[in-house]
């Protein structure tokens, strides 16, 4: 009953059309394969009949998804997926770095995540006082 209600929207009609189109493309692929590798006309017809029956009718539930995956790989979906994996890995690395930064902030309370440059200035002042003791206020005359 539920299937009949769903069919009001023409969903099953659409899926059956798509299945038919994919079968036609698979048949074209079989014809192309046979045309490419077989010269004898009789053997060609026999092969088309055999492969057509075996792939399109007898075991379409197996070869249908395989043909779809083969087609998707042929148009370059794998390259896009590799890009997605690389970008996802990059984002995961950013997240891990952020978490590590947060943990360091927790261990050193009072410090800011962004450096204000005060620590660098203090370090520079210390190094200058070591080089030039006159810069030290306690050593001045």
């Amino acid at each position: 009953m539920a299937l009949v209600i769903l069919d009001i929207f023409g969903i099953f009609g659409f899926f059956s059309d798509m299945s038919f189109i994919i079968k036609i493309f698979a048949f074209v692929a079989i014809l192309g394969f046979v045309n490419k590798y077989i010269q004898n006309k009789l053997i060609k017809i026999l092969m088309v009949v055999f492969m057509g029956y075996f792939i399109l009718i007898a075991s379409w539930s197996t070869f249908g998804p395989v043909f779809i995956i083969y087609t998707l790989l042929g148009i370059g979906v794998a390259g896009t997926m590799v890009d997605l994996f690389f970008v996802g890995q990059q984002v995961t690395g950013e997240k891990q770095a952020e978490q590590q930064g947060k943990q360091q902030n927790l261990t050193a309370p009072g410090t800011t995540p962004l450096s204000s440059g005060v620590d660098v200035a203090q370090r520079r002042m210390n190094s200058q006082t070591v080089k030039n003791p006159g810069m030290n206020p306690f050593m001045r005359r």
Partner: protein
Amino acid sequence: MNNKGGLFGIIGIGFLVIILLPIVFMQVYSISRPLFQVIIAFLIMGYLKNMGIEGVTFWILSAILVYFLAWKYVEMAASFYVLIFLMGAGFTSTVVWGSAFFRGKFRASKGHAE
């Protein structure tokens, strides 16, 4: 998706825009519909010729595929054609890496604002 900072959402929106582009074109410019139909019909016939199919088989298969892809489901076929065309030109990599780049820029600017 949230674990990746919404990146896959941005990439999905990019791909959705590409897929919807021919449909919007067909709605806005009515001339683009027959244009897409002609392109898809020639694409199908070229594909069948390339497969070495000739004679009656060629015309029967062409008629079936042209009816379904260039007439009944022309919007879907046009979207798929544009996606495949851009994929062949390497534009999907631009969408993926561009989304990551602009997301990084946006996050950096947000961090400075904070």
